[in-house]
């Protein structure tokens, strides 16, 4: 297929997954802010923005991290390229360009999200509960995902969509964990405290994984268990293990179909191997933050390799 078409499909997936994550992030933030804390809710919102790399753009436009402004910034603001509105619009525009590579169900899912977004934008902001906005976003992300799985031909395009999904999801899981561990809990003596556990639970809840976690592990919520669940457990749908396995699977399918391997397969293989080899103990020895930062950096390198090998159109 055309490199540009593959690129558009890949970005549809990345943008929708990102919108989904931003919605989850908003949920984490609003729940954590309900908890009385020593340093007040403001700095917690600020921490969230820091972790996602959007703090500077926010401060320039809005100043203090007031919840109302953060909601605007993360949901509606078109100046913020990672806002839910921006992501959905970009996903739909990418979809419009490659209409012929999509089924009508997939297009419907994208287009409906976009049309409803325009409705939401016209509504009175004070009448919009945050939970309604986040639920709405996650519902549409799931609808798109579902229509892709149910109706799309399992061809190259399907592989590029999935590569986009897994790459973005792995990166986002790492970032969400990093928010919790590194930013939300600035003092080491909080580790293991009631506040710590509450924050972990909130994170699980935002990932829609609270019940799954309890089924899988039972007992108390601990940082070790959660790290195992979100990094190493192949049963967890958002774990890094699941994401890297997904990347490997779809990249290998491409290599087989095209009859050649590229640096993308090499990079994905080493990323997956790194996750598989890491024990929870080793992760905490290295430092969770360091481990996650390394994952995020390697995942970005993989994205570059995928771009150079398939999406740029420059290969010979």
């Amino acid at each position: 297929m055309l490199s540009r078409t593959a690129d558009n499909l890949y970005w549809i997936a990345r943008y929708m997954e990102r919108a989904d994550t931003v919605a989850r992030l908003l949920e984490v933030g609003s729940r954590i802010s309900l908890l009385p804390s020593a340093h007040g809710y403001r700095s917690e919102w600020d921490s969230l923005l820091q972790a996602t790399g959007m703090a500077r753009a926010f401060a320039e436009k809005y100043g203090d991290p007031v919840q109302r402004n953060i909601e605007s910034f993360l949901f509606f603001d078109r100046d913020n390229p990672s806002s839910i509105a921006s992501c959905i619009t970009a996903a739909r525009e990418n979809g419009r360009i490659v209409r012929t590579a999509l089924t009508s169900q997939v297009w419907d899912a994208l287009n409906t999200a976009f049309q409803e977004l325009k409705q939401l934008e016209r509504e009175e902001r004070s009448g919009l509960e945050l939970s309604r906005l986040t639920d709405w976003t996650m519902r549409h992300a799931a609808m798109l995902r579902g229509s892709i799985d149910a109706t799309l031909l399992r061809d190259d395009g399907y592989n590029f969509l999935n590569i986009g999904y897994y790459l973005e999801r792995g990166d986002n899981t790492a970032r969400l964990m990093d928010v919790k561990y590194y930013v939300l809990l600035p003092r080491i003596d909080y580790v293991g405290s009631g506040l710590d556990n509450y924050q972990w639970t909130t994170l699980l809840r935002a990932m829609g994984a609270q019940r799954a976690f309890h089924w899988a592990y039972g007992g108390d919520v601990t940082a070790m268990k959660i790290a195992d669940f979100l990094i190493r457990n192949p049963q967890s749908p958002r774990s890094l293990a699941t994401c890297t396995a997904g990347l490997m699977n779809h990249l290998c399918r491409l290599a087989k179909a095209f009859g050649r391997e590229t640096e993308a397969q090499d990079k994905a293989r080493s990323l997956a191997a790194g996750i598989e080899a890491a024990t929870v103990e080793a992760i905490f020895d290295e430092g969770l933050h360091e481990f996650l930062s390394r994952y995020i950096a390697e995942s970005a390198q993989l994205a570059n390799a995928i771009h150079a090998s398939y999406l740029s159109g420059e290969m010979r």
Partner: protein
Amino acid sequence: MTQFNEMYQGVDVRQPYARLKDWVGHMPQELRSLKQAEAEALFRRIGITFAVYGEGGDPDRLIPFDMFPRVFSGSEWAKLERGIKQRARALNAFLVDVYGRGEIIRAGRIPARLVYQNEAYEKAVAGFVPPKGVYSHIVGVDIVRTGPDDFYVLEDNCRTPSGVSYMLESREIMMRMFPDLFRENRIEPVDTYSEKLRRTLSSVAPGKCKGEPTVVILTPGHFNSAYYEHSLLADLMGVELVEGQDLFVDGEYVYMRTTEGPQRVDVIYRRIDDAYLDPLCFRPDSMLGIPGLMDVYRSGGVSICSAPGAGVADDKAVYTYVPDMVRFYLGEEPILKNVPTWQCGREDDLKHVLSNLPDLVVKEVHGSGGYGMLVGPKATKEEIDRFRLKLAEDPGNYIAQPTLALSTVPTFVDEGVAPRHVDLRPYCLVGERIELVPGGLTRVALKEGSLVVNSSQGGGVKDTWVLAE
């Protein structure tokens, strides 16, 4: 002015429309509104947005769709078909000639100035004969009707006539909404168009191409108002829809950038203007084109459809001479008539035009979309005076034609059903063979009495039926 109603002659119904009388008679108002809403929802759902070439406008705009079909009998169509094919042959012969020896000019049948100083004449392709001697592979001929047997050609479109997606989608929607109509009437199918187009494009692959040619559609991009049409045609033909950035020249050939590496391209059905094709040959600032494309084209490494330079045949000033082309190249009498046209650049013609402005339609030679146009009988005195000044200033820029009594077809309006003026654009395919799908784009002026069918000015579309004999 008496207007020919294609359905009713007094109380009598003309034969092709016979079965539609009951259909419309038995459709209650509520059902009609329901169906109309359904049709619009379908158009919006499939995302068909549309603008006839050069009209611009909102890319997400829907063109109004009128459910009342326009019908031709098999024998009416047979004559139209002969006339359109004849015209398409003559136009292509003209193009090959004026980029070659220019016999028609040497013979004094058409002024050299109109051709060689025409902006659409591309010196860059002089001396080149495209594969199968075809310059214009899709000829869109705009036709109006004034009587049972009177058809006039308003203009020819030899470059990249748009609107064919409306022919295809209107039919799809009508068949979904009114299957009974298609059971009762024997209506020739139009959905063979994409297959015929693909065959036409493949048939003009360059000589250097061995095996099954790779065909692509070149679009200016998803912001273009006709993008839907480009993607529909690509989808129906099963070919890639590319932008300039997806193609590149390497050595003697053109390639597209794919996930598996470069893939050679043999035929480019381009939906961008000549000026943007190749920044090395035409506009150096073009971001849409493919550098080096014209060198590959001229040396027979790739085919471009329509061929660069085809536009010189559909200029409004050249239009006047199409009947002469038919006689000169084919030795036949033209089957379809031209609308009598006065060239305001000629002194005698200008004199006639100036003294008859209230009865004439005056158009810009290079204009399109119904803008920059004077419809004498509908114009105010001020508008006529304004045009008088324009004509005095730059007469060569205008042509004038008599106001034709365009035929009408019953059309759904708020009050029920009423006659509205229509025109017709069939799409003639020219490759190894010359083919015409029985149907076309019927545009209808929805405003009462209006003669302007352009979608930007209150025009809509209808499904166009040709009955099987």
